[in-house]
């Protein structure tokens, strides 16, 4: 093992996912020398998405070929502060990425913007329902950036991702049959929406009959061949049904590998180093300035990479972990409610309902994409929350990303049988005739839900694991149950043979054994007050102003929509202000507290 120090560069970017690749591209365009460090290996569509070998459910979705290897590092989890957190030893509830492209190589591609109300939720709720509407212990906050400010960056991200969708309102005019609750846009989607698969088509009809407002889900799956602003080319999605957990062999699903890296690699001032696990950010003696990072390479050498600017883009909780390990910002303490790093940790409040259709028609669940049909009637603050006394909401949708037979059999709708002939008959029937409707809801932040360092377990590099303290709370449980109950009318209109409503059960704590989503949020949030946020509205650390932390860690609370559209827009927003303000100034804070 040798320790060495490399020549300094202008900027180091930690993580080669969407956030890291966007930041690296922007900084290279600004003329900075950029080193991007990725702890995983090299990955590409050509190697990891090669047809037909990549269409392997066992390797992709059961053995998690493209995901984080927990043997190297993981987290510990507990529900309450009086419990001992235990290691997350086997991937299940959430599936972080690893390797070039990060989770962007194997995400599904549902690509939303954020609702304007979600970005200023505390102000919005206070204005509409009064301050007392916010329950004790709920840490609701504004992002410190508005939809209007972010709009150009949402637009930019959609053009880079080649997003397919149907607009409702563009430039103040109603232009299409898109989501009537969606905010106005400066431009249409770059591509028209994907076609509805059969089950989405059924849902669209039934939802309309129920009196709701169905629309085509925006998806970063190209509905037609497309060339993005970087010159990267995408093929058309053929609904192969292998979006989620796999690399897209059609080059139709947006990924950093297809949509950004080919252009990024052309910058001579760009260097990508793989198998480079960043251990921490180095600070100078004042603790107010980062001097670079130290990482461990594949041979076990510890290498120091000095840099004038450090971008953490290692994914939501890895970013928080790195901040805690490096001493950037004050760790959050839930007892005194002080400190910022670790607070407002949230997730996605999703439950899945299964509908069994009559045996006269197969549902062809294996056909899929990141598209689908959604209704937003119960998302965000699109309905009057006054009588319900909870905050938040869920879109309801059929987002059939392709159900393969192992998942279909394990998740079959049965009378409780789990094996044997009785189960087998029902599992086969369920695979052919059922489909799933998701309620993908928001998750509010709470004072006692947070991230910190675990006192017991260590990673393979000898550093303490990150500890998650997380549980579902009354507000979010009631929200989920209310929204799922609204499916009743849809199910009646569908003429279903049977239905299983997936609803949050107040008696059941958060369970790490069931896959939910990898939409983890918060922990190092953006905001207007350095006492309650780790980052300012440009994702700059309040404490160490040459560190920017990009990812869903910045969300003060979880929204109903999937996170990546907002992650990408925030990355472009942050990069824009680094380029136009920070680089031109003395490298200090962009916001004075």
């Amino acid at each position, binding site marked *: 093992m040798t320790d060495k120090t490399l020549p300094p560069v202008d900027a180091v970017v930690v993580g080669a996912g969407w956030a890291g690749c966007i930041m690296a591209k922007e900084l290279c365009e600004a003329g900075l020398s950029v080193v991007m460090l990725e702890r995983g290996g090299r990955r590409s569509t050509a190697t990891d998405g090669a047809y*037909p*070998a990549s*269409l*392997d*459910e*066992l*390797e992709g979705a*059961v*053995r*998690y070929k493209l995901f984080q*290897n*927990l*043997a190297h*590092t993981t987290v510990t*989890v507990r*529900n309450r502060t009086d*419990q001992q957190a*235990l*290691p*997350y*030893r*086997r*991937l*299940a509830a959430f599936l972080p990425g690893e390797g070039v492209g990060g989770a962007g190589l194997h995400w599904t591609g549902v690509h939303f913007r954020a609702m304007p109300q979600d970005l200023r939720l505390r102000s919005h709720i206070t204005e509409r329902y009064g301050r007392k509407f916010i329950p004790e212990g709920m840490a609701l906050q504004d992002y410190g950036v508005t939809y209007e400010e972010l709009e150009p960056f949402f637009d930019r991200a959609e053009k880079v991702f080649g997003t397919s969708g149907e607009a409702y309102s563009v430039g103040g005019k109603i232009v299409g049959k898109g989501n009537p609750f969606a905010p106005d846009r400066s431009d249409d989607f770059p591509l028209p929406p994907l*076609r*509805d*698969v*059969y089950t989405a*088509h059924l849902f669209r009809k039934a939802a309309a009959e129920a009196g709701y407002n169905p629309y085509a889900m925006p998806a970063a799956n190209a509905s037609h061949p497309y060339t993005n602003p970087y010159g990267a080319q995408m093929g058309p999605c*053929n*609904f*192969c*049904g292998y979006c989620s957990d796999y690399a897209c*062999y059609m080059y139709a699903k947006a990924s950093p590998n297809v949509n950004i890296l080919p252009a990024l690699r052309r910058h001579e001032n760009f260097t990508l180093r793989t198998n480079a696990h960043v251990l921490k950010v180095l600070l100078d003696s004042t603790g107010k300035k980062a001097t670079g990072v130290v990482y461990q390479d594949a041979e*076990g050498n510890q290498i120091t990479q000095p840099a004038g600017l450090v971008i953490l883009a290692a994914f939501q909780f890895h970013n928080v972990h790195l901040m805690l390990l490096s001493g950037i910002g004050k760790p959050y303490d839930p007892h005194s409610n002080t400190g910022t790093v670790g607070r407002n940790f949230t997730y996605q409040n999703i439950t899945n309902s299964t509908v069994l259709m009559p045996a006269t*028609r*197969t549902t*062809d669940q*294996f*056909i899929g994409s990141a598209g689908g049909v959604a209704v937003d009637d119960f998302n965000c603050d699109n309905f009057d929350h006054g009588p319900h006394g909870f905050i938040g909401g869920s879109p309801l949708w059929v987002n059939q990303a392709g159900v*393969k*037979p*192992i998942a*279909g*059999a*394990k998740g079959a709708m049965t009378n409780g049988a*789990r*094996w*044997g*002939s009785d189960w*087998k008959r029902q599992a*086969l029937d369920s695979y*052919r005739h059922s489909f799933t409707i998701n309620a993908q809801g928001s998750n509010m932040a709470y004072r006692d839900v947070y991230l910190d360092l675990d006192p*017991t*377990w260590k990673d*393979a590099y000898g550093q303490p694991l990150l500890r998650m303290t997380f549980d579902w709370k009354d507000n979010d449980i009631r929200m989920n149950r209310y929204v799922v109950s609204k499916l009743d009318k849809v199910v009646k209109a569908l003429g279903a043979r049977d239905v299983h409503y997936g609803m949050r059960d107040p008696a059941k*704590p958060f*369970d*790490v*054994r069931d896959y939910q989503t990898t939409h983890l949020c918060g922990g190092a949030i953006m905001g207007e007050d350095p006492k309650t946020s780790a980052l300012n509205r440009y994702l700059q650390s309040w404490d160490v102003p040459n560190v920017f932390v990009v990812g869903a860690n910045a969300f003060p609370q979880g929204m109903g929509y999937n996170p990546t559209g907002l992650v990408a827009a925030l990355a472009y927003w942050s990069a824009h202000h680094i380029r136009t303000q920070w680089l031109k100034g003395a490298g200090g804070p962009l916001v004075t507290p």
Partner: protein
Amino acid sequence: MPDVPPKPVLPRSRTSSPLPTETAFAPTARRRHVVQGLGTGVAALAIGAGRAQAGQTASSPADASAQPVAAQNTLFFSAAEKAFLAAACERLFPEDASGPGATMLGVPHYIEQQMATPWARGETWYMQGPHVNGPANLGYQLPYTPQQLYRLGIAGTQAWVQTQHQTLFENLPPATQDAVLSALEHNITQFDGLPSGQFFEQLRADTIEGAFADPRHGGNRHLAGWTMMGFPGARGDYMDWVDRYDTPYPYGPVSINGETP
């Protein structure tokens, strides 16, 4: 060729080192019948030699595949273990009116093949101690790899069946086999800290995977699992079918290697 990693060295020696000892795992009080006298016997059956600590595995991931070529044909399960597997998988996924069962589909063969992968050696799980027992919803906390789960689980089940029925599992009539499996599923016993339910869940998951994974992994023979399900396999192109709402998708399955039923 099936795209599976080379088979590892799997010491069959009964004197190989025991299961991980660093453990704070305590069997829960719920277990009613604890198999007595299994301790050393079952532990000694467990593969243990050559187990890298999680830390070592992590810092030198190449070690796992650096296995002598001569060892590649070594199979994991003994004949006795295979007899159990064949019988148990068939009860979990029986041949019946809806189609072939685990045996015809090659499920035991699939599980055998899986035992030679890094997953089976616990190289994709966080295996560092201490191993502390906790509420089920906080997930798997045992010190055992999948290989160890099988070794302990099969030996433990057979020993338990012996005490209950004075014979081996595979000799029991199907209804009694089902009763045994159901007892395992409901954690009626435990084997050296391995709750029987945990072993059952591993066996159930692997049986389903063997029935429906691509045939290059050794199960789903002749694509019969997919034919039963109505899954077209690795076709991966529904461009012309996505919105033909009047017609179900008509084509049968194709495997990754181009096999059809």
